[in-house]
């Protein structure tokens, strides 16, 4: 619909388009013989900007055009009411001169945002303490400041039929694999949904295998982490309204990396990396292994240890499988309760969980001592994984392992391992394999271990970049 020359008609059209919404306001001013009408949503605009930079200049400069009078950088001229209505949604103020059809859209949006905080979910000991926030522009500002190169490409998308959420993808043009960007573009454009909730919706709409427990994209709230992956040739997705960035394509190993690894001595960094991967294995299979050993193959244990186990299990009526499953369930309930409970009464969990369940369950011979130790160890091991998504996967995986161990003992455990291994190696993201063994060639350098910086000369294998070499010799000097 085209805009009308008379402001009264336009006001009616706007009101119709906005369904007589109460926060739609107009105000009139007269300067000389010209009459202006301002249209705006009073919930979306910054009054000071409108007062100082639109109203005042218009009153002072009586005989120049609106464009010349108003000192606002962001201005669009249009005659389309639909476009103007969209602009109102974004907090723009529309100025119309009585008798002219042209609408001037001025950027006067009010920005209410929280200040940049420290990361809550991904704490590090050394390194930057900035976290992404809900405002996309601020996040892009943070990223641009970290990567000051014209190579950094930002691409906007609008997703959500009704919410019109702004999404940005970021990548480094000379490093990224163009096929991945093309495929990502294809998938983002074809998303057709009412509104989008990042990062969960985007992840689920883009995942190829939806029946997988393993996260196929990395979620992070740290700009420095986003930068390190962009430098590896990956693509980041930032969404307005979400303080989390999504990174893809990532491999299984990325979920065990932490920015801290790169801040400390590489030997320590590698040790911690290996520790995390080891803990992942513990977290998924320790209860299963315990059940297998206790019920099927106690012969595998040395005699003395078998005696210790036997003494702790002597008076327990429940079979080991039930013990394991019930204790793990209790652990899950405690964990979920801790997240949901308001913090003032959070202390209760400690008392109920630690004392009542931990001690009394053993004293009343419901669950054996060793089982409590095993489950506690499993729980702690799953906490050590830096990515919340991966750690959640590690929370659910023990159950199939216990099930298999309960049927076939250690053989069942082995079969479960094989299944997980096969599943991992079948996963793909954008045609990029998710899992590869970190043993061959140079691929071990940033997967199983964290090699010294001057040895990290090639980019991560899974981003399949055209530009594989990071840099020839980062340590320019010769020893």
């Amino acid at each position, binding site marked *: 619909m085209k805009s009308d020359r008379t402001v009264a008609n336009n006001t009616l059209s706007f009101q119709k388009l906005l369904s007589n919404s109460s926060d739609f306001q107009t105000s009139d001013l007269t300067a000389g013989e010209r009459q202006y009408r301002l249209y705006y949503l009073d919930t979306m605009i910054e009054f000071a900007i409108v007062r100082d930079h639109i109203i005042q200049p218009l009153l002072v400069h009586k005989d120049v055009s609106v464009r010349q009078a108003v000192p606002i950088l962001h201005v669009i001229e249009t005659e389309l009411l639909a476009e103007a209505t969209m602009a109102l949604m974004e907090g723009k103020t529309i100025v119309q001169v009585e008798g002219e059809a042209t609408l001037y859209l001025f950027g006067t949006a009010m920005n209410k945002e929280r200040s940049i905080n420290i990361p809550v979910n991904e704490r590090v000991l050394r390194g930057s303490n900035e976290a992404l926030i809900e405002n996309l522009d601020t996040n892009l500002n943070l990223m641009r400041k970290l990567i000051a190169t014209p190579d950094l490409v930002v691409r906007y998308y609008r997703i959500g039929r009704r919410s019109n959420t702004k999404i940005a993808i970021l990548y480094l043009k000379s490093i990224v694999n163009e096929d991945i960007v093309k495929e990502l573009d294809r998938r983002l454009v074809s998303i057709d949904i009412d509104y989008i909730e990042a990062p969960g919706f985007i992840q689920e709409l883009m995942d190829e295998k939806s029946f997988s427990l393993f996260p196929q994209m990395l979620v992070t709230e740290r700009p420095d982490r986003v930068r390190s992956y962009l430098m590896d040739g990956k693509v980041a997705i930032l969404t307005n309204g979400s303080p989390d960035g999504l990174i893809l394509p990532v491999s299984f190993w990325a979920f065990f990396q932490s920015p801290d690894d790169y801040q400390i001595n590489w030997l320590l960094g590698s040790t911690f990396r290996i520790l995390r991967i080891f803990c992942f294995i513990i977290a998924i299979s320790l209860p299963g292994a315990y059940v297998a050993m206790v019920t099927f193959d106690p012969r*595998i244990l040395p005699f003395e240890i078998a005696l210790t186990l036997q003494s702790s299990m002597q008076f327990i009526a429940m079979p080991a499988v039930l013990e394991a499953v019930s204790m793990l369930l209790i652990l899950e309930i405690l964990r979920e309760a801790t997240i949901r409970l308001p913090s003032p009464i959070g202390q209760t969990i400690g008392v109920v969980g630690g004392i009542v369940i931990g001690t009394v369950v053993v004293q009343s011979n419901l669950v054996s001592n060793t089982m409590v130790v095993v489950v506690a160890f499993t729980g702690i091991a799953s906490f050590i994984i830096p990515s919340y998504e991966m750690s959640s996967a590690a929370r659910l995986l023990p159950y199939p392992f216990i099930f298999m161990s309960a049927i*076939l003992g250690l*053989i069942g*455990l*082995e079969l479960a391992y094989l299944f997980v*291994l096969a599943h991992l*190696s079948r996963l793909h993201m954008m045609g990029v*394999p998710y899992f590869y*063994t970190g*043993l061959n060639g140079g691929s071990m350098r940033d997967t199983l271990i964290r090699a010294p910086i001057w040895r990290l000369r090639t980019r991560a294998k899974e981003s399949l970049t055209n530009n594989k070499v990071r840099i020839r010799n980062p340590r320019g000097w010769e020893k």
Partner: protein
Amino acid sequence: MIHLKQLSTQQLTCLVILTQVGVHVLSIPFNESRHSGHDAWMSILFGGVVAQAVIVIIYWLGKRHPNQSLPQYMGVVVGKPIGVLVNLLFAAYCAESCLLVTVSYTDVIERWLLVTTPWYVILGLSIAIAAYIASSPLRSIAVVTQSIMFMFLVCVVIVLTSGTGQGDYRHLLPIGTHGIGAIIRDSIPALWLYAGYELLLYVFPFVKSHRHKDIVIAMTIANGVTTLFYVVLSMLVTYKFSESQINTIAEPLVFILRQFNWPVVQSLDILFITIWLAVVAVTAYMYLFLSARYLAHIFRNEIRKHTMLVWLLGGICFIVGLWGEDREKVIRFTVYHNYATGIMVIIMPTLLLLISLMRGRGSVVR
């Protein structure tokens, strides 16, 4: 999209090693010492040399058709109707290998670990896992195999640590007393140990290498590692047991593992048999995969439903495998299967190469 069908030469090496080693490890060198006695390790070594010769033949055949796998160019070499028949034979042979491997190892598990568990549970779950892996693309299979390589190395360490210890090196002496004839005669059973390298017939075009020569090098490394492992294993067994003991012990490795005393793990044999399951699984899923691939090419148009074929073959293996509970049947079947191996793995590639050579040029190299 990004092309992911190719294997690296390193992955090829892993695939071949792990397809070659399998259930037999437990019984080495029982079958190979019937005539050669304590010289069994020489028979095994000789078997490895023969395997190497066949690898060269297969490589030669593959090099003549570098862009196609055997089931695709079979028709070109032997003509359409015979080609279909031979493809079918290969498919049957691979399915049979998969069946035999799973049945034999289920038997081992049934005897040593899970005595009371029903046969069909162990067999069914093993075949299900093998089929799940075999229904993946070749690259995924290679990645799984690479990871299992790690378990194989753990097993090798277990064997080496428990094998060296008290024993008598004089059991190995005097070398060669049984005569060349006996050694060569015993190298025939040794040939079955090495089956597995014939997967090159199928994977040749998928290997990513700068030169074709890299493929034969990778294969030689794989076969060399397997041969070395077998020879060391048979020497360790001979070091531990005298000739008369070997004659009565069918699975000497289990006894060697069992008597080893380690304060952390009481009986290493359980641990070994458990971890070794993964290594045996490689043989099972690789053959299942190959079988499905050969079967896919029996009609004029390739059957594209790989997953369906794999599960179909897996189901057949499971049903036939239910009869494997009777050990006598398995042993009789093994004898027959050994002949089949000789024909399909050694004679067939040689024949194909000869025919291909007689008919002149191979496929055009693009």
